[in-house]
């Protein structure tokens, strides 16, 4: 067993840290305040290969592994959770399912544009009536000549307005339940497709979370992803991978919070001492760093098993469960160490605490992760 990173991964970390510090951090507060999607940052992410990290070279990707991808989301999220989730949703929820399930033609057409960042991707599973109960899909897809006609609404879709292409789950046969679900690759300018209102969120406010509306949306049959009736399975497998990204995002938020808090407590003076000199501060930070290191090990382990092409769904669920709850807990405690200043928008910790909460909810709530883990343990 070897816990050290390879020299390649160390150099990747150097790149991510520098990019995050120079390009992402300066905009983080503004992106949150204005709820504006950071298009300029996304262009730069594309230019340096951060939108196609685990994609093979032949499709314009960087041909790196899932560990390299998780580390990228982690470092970006340390300074801006919005940027972290943009990369995560694009890579795990749109690029990966095409890479893993697409036909050669689909890969040629879509994977190349996604991996180079020419196009941004998104994923539509959640509906107004189908959140954790994802099997309750109402969106329908009816064959019509060479096309399918899609009707329905998807909700809370990350990257929605900024994306060019979407993986959409729809029912091709309602009588079969989850086995009647099929996945489609839908382009933004397909007839009948539109992006609805942008949600006003508590955190990750720059990430363009919107509805997707399909009214007699015409999707070529060639754009079916995977086989008919396999859409639910494809969506669940996609979310297994996505959980590595969200675990990495949560891990990044938590570590970022600790990093800025360590700097703060070394400067803040109360009772004639730097507050870092108080044992309460030291114990709090020691406790939090231990938790975050455990979250990192779980996250990297899940990425490692995915890279080794071994079963990783339960590892990803554990990583996501633990890291997201760590992010919420750590940001709350770090804000407490900031005192009143931490509650103001002058300090990033306030944003981080708001950003952390979503990691316990999207791509499977903490409760869903526990269902996955318990099922793997064969507890029922």
């Amino acid at each position, binding site marked *: 067993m070897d816990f050290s990173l390879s020299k390649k991964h160390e*150099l990747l970390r150097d*790149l991510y840290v520098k*990019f995050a510090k120079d390009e992402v951090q300066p905009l983080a507060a503004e992106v949150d305040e204005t709820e504006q999607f950071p298009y300029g940052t996304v262009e730069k992410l594309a230019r*340096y*290969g951060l939108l*196609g990290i685990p994609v093979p070279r032949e499709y314009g990707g*960087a041909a790196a592994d899932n560990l390299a991808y998780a580390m990228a989301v982690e470092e970006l999220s340390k300074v801006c959770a919005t940027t972290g989730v943009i990369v995560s949703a694009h890579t795990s929820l749109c690029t990966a399912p095409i890479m893993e399930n697409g036909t050669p033609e689909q890969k040629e057409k879509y994977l190349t544009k996604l991996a180079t960042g020419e196009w941004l991707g998104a994923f539509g599973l959640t509906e107004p009536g189908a959140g954790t109960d994802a099997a309750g899909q109402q969106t329908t897809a009816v064959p019509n000549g060479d096309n399918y006609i899609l009707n329905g609404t998807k909700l809370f879709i990350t990257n929605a307005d900024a994306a060019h292409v979407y993986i959409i789950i729809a029912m091709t046969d309602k009588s079969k339940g989850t086995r009647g679900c099929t996945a489609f690759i839908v382009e933004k300018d397909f007839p009948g497709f539109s992006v609805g209102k942008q949600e006003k969120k508590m955190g990750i406010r720059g990430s363009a979370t919107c509805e997707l509306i399909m009214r007699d949306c015409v999707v070529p049959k060639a754009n079916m992803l995977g086989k008919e009736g396999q859409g639910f399975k494809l969506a669940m497998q996609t979310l297994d991978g996505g959980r590595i990204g969200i675990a990495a995002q949560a891990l990044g938020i938590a570590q970022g919070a600790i990093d800025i808090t360590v700097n703060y407590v070394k400067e803040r003076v109360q009772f004639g001492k730097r507050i870092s000199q108080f044992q309460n501060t030291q114990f709090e930070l020691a406790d939090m760093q231990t938790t975050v290191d455990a979250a990192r090990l779980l996250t990297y382990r899940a990425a490692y098993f995915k890279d080794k092409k071994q079963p990783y769904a339960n590892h990803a669920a554990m990583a996501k469960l633990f890291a997201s709850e760590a992010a919420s807990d750590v940001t709350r405690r770090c804000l407490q160490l900031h005192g009143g200043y931490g509650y103001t928008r002058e300090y990033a910790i306030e944003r981080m605490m708001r950003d952390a909460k979503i990691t316990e909810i999207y791509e499977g709530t903490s409760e869903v992760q526990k269902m996955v883990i318990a099922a793997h343990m064969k507890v029922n």
Partner: protein
Amino acid sequence: MKIIVCIKQVPNTNEVKLNQETGTLIRDGVPSIINPDDLAGIEAALRIKDTRDAHVTVITMGPPQADVALREALAMGCDDAYLISDRAFAGADTWATSGTLAGAINLLGYDLIITGRQAIDGDTAQVGPQIAEHLGIPVISYAEEINAEDKTITVKRQYEDRYQIIQAQYPVLITALSELNQPRYMSVGGIVDAYDTKEVKSLAYVDLEHLVARENIGLKGSPTRVKKSFTKSPKGKGELHQVSDDESVEIIIRKLKEHHIL
């Protein structure tokens, strides 16, 4: 066009600590980076490559740990990397270093050589011009703008109070200032390539002995003798006065008198 960029791996700090007894640098525990002027040199070469047919080779003379600096250059987009490393080169001053680098450059072939102006750990600014001297080619130092054409290269050379525009034919050596450009990041794919598909090639003395005499390398080939090394004492913090022009003249004159300069 064949471009060679010479780089140096340096400790990431301007406050280099010295071993007072030996006068050598204490490198332990200080993260290493590519010298900032040299990084600008890499970027200058890559910008030429962006717009015309050019092959960029990056070289460094240093210990095996300098491998990572060369990988970083590869990850930015350089085509080739050579680590010039041998116990025989140890203890080289700027003269022995430049002679050894010139030997390697002769071995590799070149049209254009770019070095940084100076390294932040030694600040001599000697190695670049000395390489040109060893090779018998012109040098244009302190480049703040470079415009490479097929037959000639035009360089804006910085002075404290003015600049020169100099045009030269190849081959030529240019020393780059960090202000020359904003170096690009490595790319993710570039880093993967730097470790998985490209290699850092090694050159030892045996590869260069037909080009560089043994008495001109390493400690033996180094005429420099260090009499004493010391850490510069930091300047005091400056004073900022936001006042009218007339008042500022008064303040300056008063300060100059206080220091017995006037």
